[in-house]
């Protein structure tokens, strides 16, 4: 019995290590916070357009076909990194809608001029309220919305060519086929 008391600390420690090491060794990234909005309809919103643009973005625009929604901002450096990937998606005629988060309109226009405009339409989310409704805690974040207007996928990191090939295109194909 007395021996066991001295053995207890190391046993407890082994238990803790097994718990915490498993997700690390499995390669699950703990920074990925699953979105509770997956498979839920997009939140209702209506955002105004950028100055000089015709159309803003509202939840009604996200019905009828499979689309990508991308939250971005001119001040966000990783957004710049994913800009070429978004342009590549545009080349494939995939519709992308933009939510411009917490941005000055003139900066956003400058940003689109510099890096290209991959968006079908953009809504200005100046106070970040809509982004928060989408469960976004930063930029860039990318969502795939199905034809019924339900969020089916979320990526809270810049999109790379690998993401497009391995995840986005297969999912778009599957959703379009449904």
């Amino acid at each position, binding site marked *: 019995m007395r*021996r066991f008391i001295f053995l207890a*600390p190391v046993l407890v*420690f082994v238990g803790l290590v097994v718990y915490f*090491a498993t*997700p*690390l060794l499995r390669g699950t990234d703990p920074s990925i916070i699953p979105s509770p909005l997956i498979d839920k309809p997009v939140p209702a919103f209506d955002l105004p357009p950028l100055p000089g643009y015709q159309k803003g973005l509202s939840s009604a625009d996200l019905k009828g076909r499979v689309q990508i929604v991308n939250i971005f901002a001119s001040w966000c450096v990783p957004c710049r990194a994913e800009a070429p990937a978004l342009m590549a998606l545009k080349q494939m005629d995939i519709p992308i809608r933009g939510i411009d988060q917490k941005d000055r309109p003139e900066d956003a226009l400058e940003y689109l001029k510099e890096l290209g405009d991959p968006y079908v339409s953009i809504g200005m989310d100046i106070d970040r309220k809509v982004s928060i409704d989408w469960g976004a805690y930063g930029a860039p974040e990318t969502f795939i919305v199905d034809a019924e207007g339900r969020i089916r996928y979320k990526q809270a990191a810049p999109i790379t060519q690998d993401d497009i090939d391995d995840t986005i295109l297969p999912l778009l194909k599957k959703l379009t086929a449904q």
Partner: protein
Amino acid sequence: MIPELGQFALVLAALVALAQSTVPLIGAARGNSRWMALGSSAAIMQCVLILLAFAILAYEHVVSDFTVENVVQNSFAAMPLLYKITGVWGNHEGSMLLWVMILSIYGMLIAVFGGNLPRALKARVLAVQGMIGLGFLGFILATSDPFNRIIDPPVDGEGLNPLLQDPGLAFHPPFLYLGYVGFSVAFSFAVAALIEGRVDPAWARWVRPWTLAAWSALTLGVAMGSWWAYYTLGWGGWWGWDPVENASLMPWLAGTALLHSAIVVEKRDALKSWTILLSILTFSLSLIGTFLVRSGLTTSVHSFALDPRRGIFVLGLLVAATGGALTLYAIRAPSLKMGGLFHPISREGGLVLNNLLLTTMCATVFIGTLYPLFLNALTGKTVSVGPPFFNFCCQLLTPLLVAAMGVGPLLAWKRGDLLGALGRLKFAAAASVIIALAVYYLRSGGPVLAIPALICGLWLIGSALAEVADRVRLFAIPLSHSFARAVALPRSAWGMVLAHAGLGVVIIGMTGTALWTEERIQAMAPGDSVELAGYQVQLQSVGPVKGPNYDAERATFVVTDHGRLVDTLAAERRTVHPQEQAVTNIGIRTNFFADIYAAVGEPDPAKPGAYVTRLYHHPLVPWIWVGAVIMVFGGIVSLTDRRLRIGAPTRRPVGLPDAALTAE
């Protein structure tokens, strides 16, 4: 060429650490004194090499050598010199280098000042230090090389994270690490004692100063971190129960317990295996502190390393250090000789209660911090345990701890007189109740919780004073004799009194700010004014200003008290270049009893010309940090105790080390 020299120094240091962790250990087992002596020279050599590497990295930052990746990512040419230097450890690689540098300095200090240690114990302690050094040097060389070069050097760097460009945060990591790493000494002594199979009062007397030094540094480090959070993050709070904050609190709680249990080993030769276990746990929690921040296991504002490979390496180190030490503990600790017996009502009993409460608090924080990860591992759910849980548990345990802290020091060793002790504390108890009620009445109310909370703080100060009054026999003998007695009191006694009273001051500060804070959040245009805790705060103007590496909008507030000007406060919302990151700069007016705190936010889209402003009145908040500084001062006073300075501890001669192992 110069950065490569730094890398070379690190590789050499790792090789020296390898020698340090093996040769003296074998020497100690075989009784070969030359092999044992290698430990000291290796520890000094390792320290010199790591200091050289650190100096080289600092030099690269100061001269802005943009061929080094670390400099590019964390510095830029126009940054003030202070932040170029503190930027050395304001990033993952540099802070790990700081970590091993401090470790090697502690190793060097053991080698230089450990002259009166028995040779075998010193050799084993240095060998264990060498193993820790080897592990972390390996970590740096394998995953976090600070001297990595860039093939195509840019013209300018990316700049240091603007949040880190602040004097409070700049010096927070060195003190935190002095504390974290300082506990490695207690750990090494514990492991060495387990290998040797004996723990005695002399052992505790060697361990205590190191623990005390580490505890003082950690207290200061934690206080600096919370001060920084208070005055830069702009939400008016000073502690958020953030995982990274908790990671620094857990070693502090365990270290405080260790500090106290080591006294029992030193004075009474009891609680030996518990003290060994606490030494191991305290350093393990320090490692977990490093692990939590470095692995990205919990995401939080503080983490700047999100690399799973590093996480696995640190986890490996943790398993080797803690797992190894605990296994050794399981094998050797049962055969440690039992120490002196004592009655539950005694100084020892008080210290045991203190240890139980501190470790319970530590376990609570541990569970609260890691429970979300547990749940995630089990069910995939993501939750977070909020401040209410931690606050509830602390409010439950603190009064017990505080009560014991007042009574314990007045109890005698072995068998104490509880009624006698309480009798000597009756004035302190009465005074704290009366003052708390008076303060509550003068504040004209507020939450009733303030009364017990204030009594806790005042009781600590009062009982510390009562302890001194008792020891100098104040008013029982002529004042001049009392004064002479006060001067003659051991410094460790003064240190204890200061540290306990300091905690009382901290608790009063926490109470004031937690329960009586007034907050006003609104949109204000220049000319608007708001009433705050009896003051009128008027937004006078908002205008652009330019700093060395930022542009800002500065809001000027005028604070008046019934028409009399109190102060003007300037709060800024800065955009720091080149990252274009927004940083708030707070305006604070303090009069030691309360802070007026002003922050300016974004322009209000609904009201042209208006800005979102946050104004706070924080009663007693400066006392938190004043109290923490008093505690640190207590630690330093205790460190200068004669017994620790020159009292060369001598061991009673014992034949073979194994003789101590036989009795169970």
